[in-house]
């Protein structure tokens, strides 16, 4: 891969010249020092490493850099600058949906993908949408509620 890998990260054009086999998760955290994306399992099972690639939720621990040539990646660092994030942030806070916080960057990006696809999701749709994001603290109910509140309060944003 001679010229390196071109991709967009949170709105910035990037040229990555490291190993194409490297995991996006590791590149984000270790090379770009964007540590909002968490590492829980490196096996696709916990969702702590969730990012959005070309509009779709993805586990960055299972993404080799070479596979995102030409793609757009959004991490929590980029997403947290948006109005949609502000609506989710407020909703999560209103029902104390955050405890230790480890799952939350992934949970927020999963919430975004739910609402982008279905601005007024049913509880079932919310639960399915976050089914790959594990939380050891909250028991999920507050998170599910928060996403429902964001859909109401942030009406028109999605």
């Amino acid at each position, binding site marked *: 891969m001679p010229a390196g890998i071109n991709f967009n990260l949170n709105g910035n054009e990037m040229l990555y010249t490291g190993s194409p086999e490297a995991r996006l998760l590791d590149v984000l955290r270790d090379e770009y020092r964007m540590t909002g994306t968490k590492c829980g399992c490196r096996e696709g099972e916990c969702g702590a490493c969730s990012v959005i690639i070309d509009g779709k*939720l*993805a586990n960055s621990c*299972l993404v080799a850099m070479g596979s995102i040539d030409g793609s757009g990646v959004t991490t929590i660092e980029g997403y947290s600058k948006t109005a949609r994030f502000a609506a989710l942030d407020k909703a999560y806070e209103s029902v104390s949906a955050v405890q230790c916080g480890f799952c939350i960057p992934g949970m927020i990006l999963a919430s975004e993908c739910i609402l982008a696809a279905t601005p007024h999701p049913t509880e079932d749709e919310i639960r399915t949408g976050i*089914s790959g994001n594990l939380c050891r603290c909250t028991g999920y109910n507050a998170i599910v509620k928060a996403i429902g509140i964001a859909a109401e309060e942030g009406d028109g944003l999605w």
Partner: protein
Amino acid sequence: MVGSERLPDAQSNQPASGSVTAGSLDEALKLRKENPGLIPYAGGTDLMIEGRADAAYLFLGKVPEMKRIAQDDEFIRFGAACTFSQLICSAHTPGILRDACLQIAAPAIRNMGSIGGNIGNGSPKADSALIFMATNSMLRLVSADSERILPIRKFYLGRKKLDLAPDELIVEVLMPIHGIDNYYYKKVGGRRALAISRVAFAGIMDVRDGIICNCAAAFGSIGDVIVCLDEIDRMLVGKSVEEASALKEAYIDAYNMAIVPVAGRVSADYRKQVCMNLLRDFLESNHI
């Protein structure tokens, strides 16, 4: 090289040449031919778990010819790099396949994992491959120099052994359109979003004017490969539903003899019992 064991690192003595991204099918096939050590990479959801340090990948996720879904009179043609999410959203996807895709993992994995990877991984637990087996789908296997259409039922030669030459790629899956509407699908798993199948079962019963035109049962996760036993299923083909009912116990007995599950996370006895229960339920749901 048909029938060769497809262990990418075992195929070549060349040093790893570094990963490459293919922009078109022609390019992918040329790269595959010139660098037999490259490992085809679609969504990475199986490969990155292994995370082999010395791996050199051929990235296929952006090959347009492998991302298409089209339909002709006989088949729906799914590009091998189509993801489960793509299939779930496509109007071409038949019910049995959509049902199975919806029960695979969680949304993020479904956004990444592809049918070509599901088939190419060679796992007996592959949920979309089970559906392609039950529906007697075909694989279009292409190399730079040749092309062949192979029934998926002939593709699995043994544990992780595929009928895939080192220069070939799975390019499309051809799924028959007709005769697959009356289906039965159950995945018995653990926790939903992780649900690697403990046992999965797909059945097709195509009855026209009271006569069984096609009967197919496929069992996943019970042994080295997905089990499909055409010779047993043929017992019921050409029979009326009443005639089939008379043959029901013989049919179930034949499977009972033929199926020898292996123990894994659950015991072999448990797997066997679940298989037989599902098979019986499949027949009974068809009034047999």
